[in-house]
């Protein structure tokens, strides 16, 4: 995969994550959603985090073992896992 295609994948996943997080955490100011933050730091409790992961997977039409999302240090890492899952088919 060339670099431009990789950037497009990442952009598409990032947009999906932003859209879902904005829907599940409506009080969150858009500027707070940075790649170096953990969802926990944005006010997402454990159920919110489950809802966000499930909704992003649904949005992107991915079937991925949820265990892969257990140790994510920040939103950038979440996007990395989703991009990789999209390339490998889950």
């Amino acid at each position, binding site marked *: 995969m060339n670099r431009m295609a990789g950037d497009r994948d990442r952009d598409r996943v990032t947009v999906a994550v932003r859209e879902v997080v904005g829907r599940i955490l409506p009080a969150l100011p858009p500027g707070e959603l940075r790649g170096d933050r953990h969802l926990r730091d944005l006010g997402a409790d*454990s*159920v*919110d*985090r*489950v*809802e966000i992961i*499930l909704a992003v997977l649904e949005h992107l039409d991915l079937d991925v073992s*949820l265990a892969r*999302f*257990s140790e994510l240090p920040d939103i950038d890492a979440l996007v990395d896992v989703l991009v990789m899952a999209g390339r490998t088919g889950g």
Partner: protein
Amino acid sequence: MDVGIESLNVYAGLARIGVRELLAGRGLDPDRQANLLMTSRSVGLPFEDPVTNAVNAAAPILAGLDPTDRAAIELLVTSTESGVDLSKSVASYVHDHLGLGRACRVLEVKQACYAATGAVQLAAGYLASGVSPGAKALVIATDVALVDARAGFAEPATGHGAVALLVSDRPRVLTLDLGAFGCHSYETLDSARPSPRFDIADVDRSLFTYLDCLTSSFAGYRDRVDGADFVTTFDQLAMHTPFAGLVRAAHRKMLREAGTSVDLVAADFERRVAPSLRLPAMVGNLCSGSVYLALASMLTHADVSAGARVGLYAYGSGCSAEFFSGLVDAGSARAVQAMGIPAYLAGRYELTFAEYTQLLADTADVLVPAEHRTVELGGYRKILERGRAGRPLLAHTGAKDYHRRYEWV
């Protein structure tokens, strides 16, 4: 031969605290109650432990049996992650205080919140084998909570108590679909009790593992049952309920994977899942008894008078999971409702936050073996008198030479 659950009873202590009161006391956001879907949690008293919880759950079942049927109980299994000794089982004390016969097999099993289901399935297989016609097995899931402020939002979701299940060839409560099951197990550390004083939990790993195992164990069920469909095969669902909000997320995930329109998810949840969550929301997570508290809730609040197939999901950290099923009918509802579980739960003493924190301090060592110890009813006698509703209850009174002592009060 039909095999399954003949009787089911719940004992979830004598005291509770409202989740809103607890969140406020801890300085936690009360709006999070919406995700927990919990109203109160059961709280243990100093004279309650895994043995008393088990005996107090099972005694009403045994009281309804004639001597011949009591003598037919030839297997007693306690399922617990609240052991009181590394060698001597909770079951050994329970066997004594229930007055079961000496020809009974007695043992304890452990696999976090899954173990009772493993015991029920092994017992059902034994009974169905026909090697001892007319035999019964008593499986009791029994635990105490060790949570405090360190547990965060898990604290209000954690319960205390036991569920007793009499398994036999007269399955009035649930007739198991023998051979219809799917298991999924592998090693992980999502939650554990490394000491008799505290639990540890990796919350995200635990929730994601619960959800993955539901998908995988149902896939195993589908491999064994031609045409099984999560949406259409089961009239009702009863699942292990760490807190009701997780079950809601699990249901949504399964329907999405089944291709159900998102517009239909909420109505399906209300019809097939919500009845199973009402009693758990009043008690909290009962560990391996949780799925059977959900079953009792469903049989209390859903209309199964025309007969219904129920899908059950048990999950235990560590991890091991199973999806299985059975049949219920109007007689099932009558059998469970005769135990008076909702009225008993409503009668538990409601603690203030100050009483609650004192109680946590007074019960912190309940699982710690002691060479000598005396447990006094003390100021908790008023709660005992209020909650016992006139029936005898077993109380933990202490230990002598490491031998735990109990008395009927």
